[in-house]
């Protein structure tokens, strides 16, 4: 047989290092790791809370150690990066059609920030109510 197609292999674990866009994409993906760990820490905190005020205080104290602080800053950075890049992509996932035209993308992105702000404010408000009531 004359034909002999040649398959170019890509390095499975380091393919993304060649280009900035690919590195950023992988960072976005890896953010899920940090957010996952953060979720576990939150759950841990919840169980500590259920065990009583003493256990909860101990949990809070543990959180202040430098390793934990370092992790939390990193996780926050990743969460922000992920959220902002995600918000910027939302017009693609949810186009809003008005007649023959589409609502401009930036309005949909803005709507997400507004929703985020409202949700955050609402949670702060509720926490305030609970803390004071």
């Amino acid at each position, binding site marked *: 047989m*004359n*034909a*002999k*197609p*040649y*398959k*170019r292999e*890509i390095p*499975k674990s380091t*393919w*993304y290092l*060649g*280009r900035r*866009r*690919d590195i950023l*994409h992988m960072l976005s*993906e890896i953010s899920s790791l940090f957010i996952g760990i953060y979720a576990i820490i939150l759950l841990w905190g919840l169980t500590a809370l259920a065990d009583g005020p003493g256990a909860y205080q101990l949990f809070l104290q543990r959180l202040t150690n430098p390793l934990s602080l370092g992790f939390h800053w990193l996780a926050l950075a990743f969460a922000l990066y992920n959220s902002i890049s995600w918000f910027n*992509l939302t017009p*693609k*996932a*949810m*186009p809003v*059609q008005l*007649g*023959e*035209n*589409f609502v401009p993308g930036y309005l949909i992105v803005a709507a997400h920030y507004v929703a985020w702000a409202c949700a955050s404010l609402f949670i702060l408000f509720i926490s305030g109510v609970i803390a004071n009531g």
Partner: protein
Amino acid sequence: MNHKLIELEILRYRPEQDQEPWFQNYQVPCEEDWVVLDALNYVKEHMDSSLSYRWSCHMAVCGSCGMMIDGDPALSCKTFVRDLPERAIRIEPLANFPIERDLVVVMDDFVEKLERVKPYIIREEDKPLGEGEHLQTPAQLAKFKQYTLCINCLCCYSACPQYALIPEFIGPAALALAHRYNQDSRDQGCEAREDVVSANEGIWDCAFADACSLVCPKHVDPASAIQQMKISSTIGWYKNLLGLKRS
């Protein structure tokens, strides 16, 4: 017209002679409004008639001339030499496809996947021709028009990191075409395509890297098609669970 000597670094592969691909360099006197394809044609006609590549329309509508130019997938007939940096232009066959010969890749996988998504109007009952056209308002047309623009150039497959890592992935263009039909008011085949589209190797292998949409020369935005299908597929799944009709 002014001529400028440009160096092309082209990946060659002749299966009957070569064990592996290798780079061959050519010095080409380029005119100022040339595209990379014009430079390739110069090489083929004046320097090396054995260089093989696909091309036809020279106006970015047939989709034949996709190739890697300086590491990014693009149409060689729409990539202007004047827009590229002043150094050797590296030209390789489209990434993520096996090389058949020189800049010609084996497209079989794409063609099979294109056929798999059932990219044609599916209706329960065909309207008789005598009754004329289906009515479709400009607004209804706008809903899917963007996704009809795909020229099957395969640049999106070359850019997609998931397709590079997971060869079973159906891929951006094929999935965008499924979405094109799903959104067409004349089509009733959403369910018929669901199994293929919402399989693991369908929309769910997409990690929304958005590389496909970035390189698409026709601004089809296949990534948007896939994300929209993720949402509609999920909603459909829940509807199904609750005993409601899918759509």
